[in-house]
């Protein structure tokens, strides 16, 4: 289900459960959360007055990808991302980072991993109110005992990167929401983490700023190539940013796939509720609907081109267009017919593909 197997896995979440309640541990005898009857256990948990905040969650995150977890409020997104960083101890399951089980490492090792490998951005920013912008950004370095000059230089670089130069001496409360979140981003990047967690980083911002921050985020990722777990409750945001999306409901993952897969082949009614209002032309790419035959034509598009970009060519009279991969080789073709059916009905294209 996780698709592209050719890429190297950075982080694996395997059968992770987080149960809140007085006797959360009693549901799991062995530490791993691989249970035979997941649905049955979830029912048992919920009926006994416990809360199954995350239930049997499994996925891989590949190096350099943006993995988005999307779900409505209370679906367990924050819980999962906190399990990945062990801010919350999972009740059962495994979290494997670079081949090592994160849940087994010692306290000191964990602190070390957080200091050097992880960065996190919080929904309500989580800035330290008593520190200036510069001090906030430099805080993770200060914690590590890095000299004042060095951390200042590093922090200034990060502040510059997020476009806050000139506000170094301001305090969080003097900044707008968007600016505060830039500080949060700069801080999380300051230690050059390999793994970057963002828990609804833009949800507290108004739509215009949010859009701007999303562009900023994509620009940063082009520059930095981090491995990213991004949380959002906004399906469109997920589609815009994600390489792959995991959709959560009531603590469980209902579907994992690329944006086009999710849009074209929603796993169930819950997911198709989200996909209904999605402007498909902006999501589905040439690669998603291409057939594998190599056509006789000079019209060529990149496999990442969206239908929105391709449609003018058909309007201009083309019958069939060749699709080329990132390396330039022709890998298939699309026809106007194909485009139309992709836009009209996802299941039809799904079956054909």
């Amino acid at each position: 289900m996780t698709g592209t197997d050719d890429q190297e896995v950075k982080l694996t979440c395997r059968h992770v459960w987080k149960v809140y309640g007085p006797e959360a541990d009693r549901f799991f005898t062995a530490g791993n959360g691989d249970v035979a009857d997941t649905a049955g256990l979830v029912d048992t948990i919920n009926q006994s007055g416990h809360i199954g905040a995350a239930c049997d969650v499994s996925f891989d995150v590949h190096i350099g990808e943006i993995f988005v977890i999307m779900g409505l409020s209370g679906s367990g997104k924050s819980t999962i991302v906190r399990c990945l960083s062990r801010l919350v101890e999972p009740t059962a399951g495994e979290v494997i980072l670079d081949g090592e089980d994160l849940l087994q490492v010692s306290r000191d090792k964990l602190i070390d991993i957080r200091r050097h490998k992880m960065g996190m951005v919080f929904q309500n920013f989580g800035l330290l109110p008593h520190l200036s912008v510069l001090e906030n950004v430099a805080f993770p370095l200060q914690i590590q005992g890095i000299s004042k000059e060095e951390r200042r230089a590093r922090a200034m670089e990060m502040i510059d990167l997020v476009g806050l130069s000139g506000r170094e001496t301001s305090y969080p409360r003097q900044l707008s929401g968007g600016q505060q979140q830039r500080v949060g981003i700069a801080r999380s990047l300051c230690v050059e983490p390999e793994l970057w967690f963002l828990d609804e980083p833009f949800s507290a911002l108004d739509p215009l700023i949010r859009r701007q921050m999303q562009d900023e985020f994509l620009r940063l990722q082009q520059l930095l190539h981090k491995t990213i777990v991004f949380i959002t409750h906004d399906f469109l945001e997920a589609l815009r940013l994600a390489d792959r999306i995991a959709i959560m409901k009531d603590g469980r993952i209902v579907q994992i796939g690329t944006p086009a897969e999710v849009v074209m082949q929603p796993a169930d009614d819950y997911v198709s509720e989200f996909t209904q209002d999605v402007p498909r032309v902006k999501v589905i790419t040439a690669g998603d609907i291409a057939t594998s035959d190599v056509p006789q034509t000079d019209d060529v598009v990149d496999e990442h081109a969206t239908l929105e970009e391709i449609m003018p060519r058909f309007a201009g009279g083309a019958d069939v267009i060749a699709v080329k991969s990132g390396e330039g080789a022709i890998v298939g073709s699309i026809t106007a017919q194909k485009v139309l059916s992709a836009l009209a009905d996802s299941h039809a294209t799904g079956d054909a593909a």
Partner: protein
Amino acid sequence: MSAAARETGALMSVRRISPKLLVWMVFGVLAILCLVLRDDAKWLVKYPKDWILPIEAGLEYLMDWFTAYFKPIFRLLSDALEWPMKGIQFVLQTSPWPVTIAIVAIIAYAAKGWRLALFCIASLFYMVVVGYWDESMSTLALVCMSVPLSIMIGLVMGLLGFQFRWARRVIEPTLDVMQTVPTFAYLIPILILFGIGPVVGMVASAIYASPPMVRNLMLGLQRVPDNVIESGQMSGCNGFQLLFMVRIPAAMHTIMIGVNQTIMAALAMVIIAAIIGGFADIGWEVLSTMRKAQTGQSLLAGLVIVLIAMMMDRISRGFAERSGEIHVHRSGNYFARHPMLVSMATAIVAGSLLAWAVPVFNAYPDAWIIYPAEGLNTAVSWFTRNFFDTTDAIKTYTLYFFMLPMKAGLERIARPTSWGFEMTALASVIYWMILIAIGSLAARLGGWRAVVAVALLGILFYYGASGTPWPVFIAAVTLIAFQVGGWKVALFSFLGMLFMLVSGAWPRAMLSFYLTATSVIICFVAGGALGIWAAQNDRVSAVLRPINDTLQTMPLFVFLIPVVMVFLVGDFSALLAIIMYAIVPAIRYTEHGIRHVDPVAIEAARMMGCTERQILWKVKLPLAIPEIMVGLNQVVMFALAMLVIAALVGTKGLGQWVYDSLTNARFGQGVIAGGSMALMAMIADRIIQAWAASKKRDLGLST
């Protein structure tokens, strides 16, 4: 209607009597029995001496045993603490007064700006000119020593309580007890262990003032938002870094508010301790002049305490407010970055040079002291002479028509000279008839609960706190406790009162009860009215707020000065002092409660066509009741705290007993008296809290 139907109707109505009311009916029968029998069975009113358990002797024995083994340790500690204290005292008393004034002014400026700095300069200059400089500095020295100690105790306890659940389980109830034990009672064991001397004051105030620090620290740390802590964890903080670099700085504002409260409590205790110890201190100056009826002198000295309290409060509050503020980043060299240090150093050098060159600046010459005590005396006696009729009338009326009946009972107080009639059988029948009339009116307005309340108050007024049989009293309080708070509260109240009874504290407890109850009733009625007025009228609110703020920061002792001046020592002065202090929460909570009623409810009522008056009585007040109850609770606590201090002006009761045990170093008696007061406070607290909580639940205001 047939007979059968009537019968079932009667049966139905019997069944409809709630079990709660039934209990009260049983109580009523018992009460009447006790009251009828009390002339034959004297023990019903007067708990016999033979039945008193030897608790006091036991406590004395324990303390003797303890001191025999541990006294040397405490004496050692006392010596160790004495040196730094003497040092500070020496520095403060010998440094030239302009230097001290300048330093305080600089601190004040840093805290709140030049207005406060000017206020501090003026206040301190007043102390110089009036000639109370040395006394003031000695008080200041004690506070300067005990506050850091308090803060240290507070930090350790607060951190323990925050980190470990077991510690919190011990600390929280301890704090509850500590905050209800009367001030004087703290001094007794400390006095015995440390011996007489200024160290007692210091240790006592360090302990007494630590609870607000502990509480605010724990509260502040718990309230740090989760995501701030998580961001600290994700930055890779270890436990130590998380606490000291994230949690504590983020909680700084709450912690500083704790520091402010600690400073004020320390000052209050230092003054009390000085009074007991009789050191050359400003508190002692006030008390001794007050006892000699030197009104002018005690006013002048009292003003010093007021000024010290205001300075300390404003400065520490200024810093608390500032702790949440933005720091200005200063650039430049060391001196430019630390203007406060630089200006202080300058002040010290310049002031010392000045003092060395001009002796007046070193020690203010006695000849220049302006001490307008005589003038004040004349003014005060002119006032009392001219207004004697009025003040005396107020006093007499309140005493005869309200206080004395509550104390000794109408049956003994009513005389032709005061009430205009003798307490004949006919008169008492008329009294009960009137009460029954009021009771039936109450029944219509508030149901059977109101009837019970009227009946209880009627009995109290007729027989007085000291004439009410103790079984009736205990049963009534226990029943109330049971009905509002369940069996736990009832058991606690019962055992508490039982302790007062068998330890022999009962008669005095009843005297304290009478004075507290009287003042609480007055505070509640008058304060509630003022609070309602302030809630409806912004201008009234603006006038009352600074007055309340000032009243709240004063060391309790100060309240005695004006009342004794006009009304002399006695119960009435004590009552007034208690009211002045304890009315503040009644006003505040009422106003706050009414002002913060859900605006949607008010809007809805307005849309239904309620008049403003109806909105107040039908919507705002009922919804504000839980908040008002919290205020009532505070009133009771404040009244009990003041009651002890009022013992200094000759009230009878537990407070006086505590004071007496203090001056005679009687540990057992002190513990019983202090413990009884604490128990009274705790019983009142539990009952009112439970009541407020159930009201809140009824209104659906809590979750």
